[in-house]
Each structure stands twice: as C-alpha cells, then as structure tokens.
C-alpha cells in the first residue's frame, strides 16, 4: 500500500487551508446580483408594433411553443389620396416558457425585428401555467433589451441588417410599422 509518505497528504491540507483564507466566491443572490452577459438568452421580448403576424417564428419554433393569432384591418392612407392600407393586427402572441428551449431561432428568423433577447432571468413562477407569457408581458421585457455590444477585434463590421436594428431596438419609432 502506498502509504506512509506524508508529503501528498500534507500538501492537500495546505491547499485547503490556503483556499479557506482566500475568501469565498459566493454571490449572495437576492442581496447582490451578477449581471448576465448582454447576449445571454434570458427571455424573449416582443416589440409589438413591428410584428406583422407573419407566423414565421411560430413555424420555425422546434418546440411549437409560440402561439399567434391576428386579424386584418383597413387603415386610412398615410398620405392624402393614398391607398387604403391593409394592416395585420396582432390579437395574441404567447410564448410558453415551460416548453421553450431557448434556442433563439424565432428571434433570428423574425424578418421585421419584432423579437429580441433580453438577459432578464427573474420570471420563475410557482405555477407552470403562468409561464405562458402573453404579448403584454412579452412587451414589458423590451425595457430590458440591451444595446448591441461591440465586437472583438478582427470581426467584420456588422452589416446594416439586423445587428444595427437591434441597437435601435429601444427607440420608439417603428421601423417598418405594421404594413403589409
């Protein structure tokens, strides 16, 4: 039996003693909070005025956890003498976070920048049914959507597409409105 050589055992004691004196890494959660990375996929926020009820997110969702209903309305023309606009109006936009796998496909496929990731994570519920967030709840998350962060050296400049739009996510003006 390889016993009797003390050094290994003593060294171990030394390491634990050193660790004990080093101080803890614990974050006392409700009292102090760590900020998750801006990219963290915490919760999906909905910018309702951008949504055109195109159903793309609901279709691409691997879990079938997005439920959308809408109807069409006629709006008066923007300019004098213009065409009467047909507008899709969102009636229901629910994401069931009890099913969601947080893959981010919906956010990615949205062609009108209506969905965004927010790093917010404090929305656990005692009842699983409450994890179904409706469009009002999803809209509230928009406040927590961070700005687009700069990229690492050597990265290509983000093209004028979605990346920039995300940076402006919080601005009030709808980019493409609800027109079809």
């Amino acid at each position, binding site marked *: *039996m390889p016993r009797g050589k003390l050094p290994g055992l003593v060294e171990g004691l030394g*390491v634990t003693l050193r660790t004990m004196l080093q101080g803890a*890494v*614990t974050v006392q959660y409700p009292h102090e909070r760590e900020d998750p990375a801006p990219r963290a996929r915490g919760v999906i926020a909905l910018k309702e005025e951008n949504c055109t009820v195109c159903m793309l997110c609901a279709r691409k969702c691997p879990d079938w956890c997005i439920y959308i209903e809408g109807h069409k309305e006629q709006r008066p023309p923007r300019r004098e003498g213009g065409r009467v606009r047909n507008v899709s109006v969102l009636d229901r936009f629910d994401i069931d976070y009890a099913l969601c796998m947080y893959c981010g496909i919906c956010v990615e496929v949205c062609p009108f920048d209506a969905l965004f990731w927010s790093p917010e994570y404090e929305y656990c519920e005692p009842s699983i049914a409450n994890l179904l967030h409706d469009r009002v709840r999803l809209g509230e998350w928009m406040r927590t959507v961070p700005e687009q962060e700069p990229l690492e050296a050597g990265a290509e400049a983000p093209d004028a597409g979605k990346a920039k739009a995300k940076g402006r996510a919080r601005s009030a003006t709808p980019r493409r409105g609800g027109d079809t």
Partner: protein
Amino acid sequence: MSALHLAVDVGWGWTLALKTVVVLAVVPLAALVLGYTFLLKMMSHMQSRLGPMDPGGFHGWFQLVGDGIKFLQKEDVMPLHADRRVFAIAPAVVVVSTFLVFVVIPTGPKLVVESLDVGVFYALAVSSLSVVGVLMAGWASANKFALLGALRAAAQLIAYELPLLLAVVGVVVQAGTMNLQGIVHAQQDGAIFGWGGIGFPFVLTQFIGLGLFLVASQAELTQTPFDMPVAESELVAGYMVEYTGFRFLFFFIAEFGTAFAFAALAATLFLGGWAVPWVHGTAADVLGVPVLFAKLMLVAFVMFWVRFTYPRLREDQLQALAWKVLIPIGLANVVVTGIFKVAF
C-alpha cells in the same frame, strides 16, 4: 457548567439533577458549536463558499438551530418492513453513549460531573457503545444500504478501539493514573527538565500517541477518510439512510457531540485539559472552561480540516491501516513509554 452547584451545599439528589441537566444541555450545545463552526463555516470557506449567511443575521449562526426545529416538526417516518422498536431505540442508544462520555471530562479542579478513577477506560468504553446503536439502526431499517453501512461501522469501530486504547495507554503510563483529573494534574504540575513554565503537556512526549489518537478517533467518529459507514457517494448515508426528523437529529447530535467529546479527551490527555500551569483553585475553575474549549477547538479544527480535505479509504484499506500500521506503532509507543517510565 457553572460553579454554582459546588458553592451551595445541596442534597445529593439536587446535585444529580443539576449534573444531568448540565450534561443534557452541553451535548446539543457542543454539537451546535462544532456543527456551525466547522461543518457550516470552515468547510464552506475551504470550498470557496460562504455557507449560510442569512438565518439569525450574523453569518447564519441560527441555521443549525433552525434545522433542529425543522427536524422536530417533521413527520416520524418508518420504513414498512422496519423492526419498529429497534428502529426507534437505535438513535437513543447512539446519543446516550455520547452523553455518557461527557460525564468524566473535567473542566476545572472541581468542575467535573463525576471524577472516576477509571475515567479514561470509562470514556473509551462508553464511546464505543454507539456501535450497538449503529448496528441496531442498520439492521432495523430493512435497507440494504443501511445494513452495509452498519456492518462497515461495526467492523471499523472494533478495529479502531485498539489503536485508540493503545494511544491512551502511553499517557496513562506516563501519568500513572487513569483518572482524567489526575492526568490533567500530572500535566499541570509537571516540569520539563525542571522548568515548570508551561507544565508538562503530554503531547511533548506522546506526540505519536496524539497522532494515533487523532487517526483512531477520526475512524471512531466515522469521519473522512474513514467515513465508509455513511459514505455518501456509495451508501447514500449508510445506517442513517432511513432516518428522518428528530431521530435523524439524534444521530446528528451524537455525531458532533462525540466529535466534541473526543476533541475534549484529546485536549485533556495530551494538551493539559483545563489546566493553565500557574492558575490554581477557584480561578482554575473559572478559567478551565474557556481554556479547555480553546484547546479542544484546536484539536477539532485539525480533525475537521482532515475531514474536508481527504478522500475516503476503502474498507479493506482501513482495516489494513488499523491492524498493520496503527496497532504496531501503538504497541511500540507503549513499550517505549514503559521503558522511559522505568528508566527515569
């Protein structure tokens, strides 16, 4: 443990009652202190954690008390096929053995519940009573993990009684008495080559004995690296696996209470116990408690430090260690001590 009952002349009945109350109060308190200091705080910090911080406000001092209250509220669950009576008695047997050890540990010249002439012998004998309770618990649980744990515990405790005793024999030989009080006095009044500045703590000559005692008591307490009877990753919790509520609380109190008792024994036998060399009389009675507490905490620190650092041995390796290494060393120590005793 106040000096009150010694100052007032009361009937023996009252003295007995007071002594009982003191012992009954000290054991859970001891378990709390050790559990909080080492299990909750020292271990946490060794693992880069803080441990409980909220209960009670200051560093979670109330956590274990709260746990205890929680255990008391819990339902008393018994396995369907358990041997109900044995199952119920087992924790009590274990905890009683802990209580009995405390009886002989002196905390001052007069502060001792019962100063037995066979004190050391008694302490080690009653401490091993717990194995009966452990076996009862393991058997009565009607659970294979519990049974395996209990059998391991039995084998282990029997194997480690011997080195434990041998470790103490050296001290007994040197002190010339088995009375714990006598051993403390021998250390207090002793002198190193004529210099009595710090008395003569036996650790100076019996350091091998102290090492043996610590290793063996670690095994007696079923602490890592000898915690096979409760081995979490193998036997889940060994003989305790079916226990909940206040019965589990009993085991918990017994575990840390016994750790406290062994630390106190080690402090008494090797570090001079309550004694401060130049303090005598009532002053020693007053100082004895904190002095002993400080010494035993030092010993307990080492015991738990080892517990939270090392992996666990295998049962056969543990037996081999006991019979092939510790016992020969212990015997040699006794012989050498005897020779020195006769020669000087």
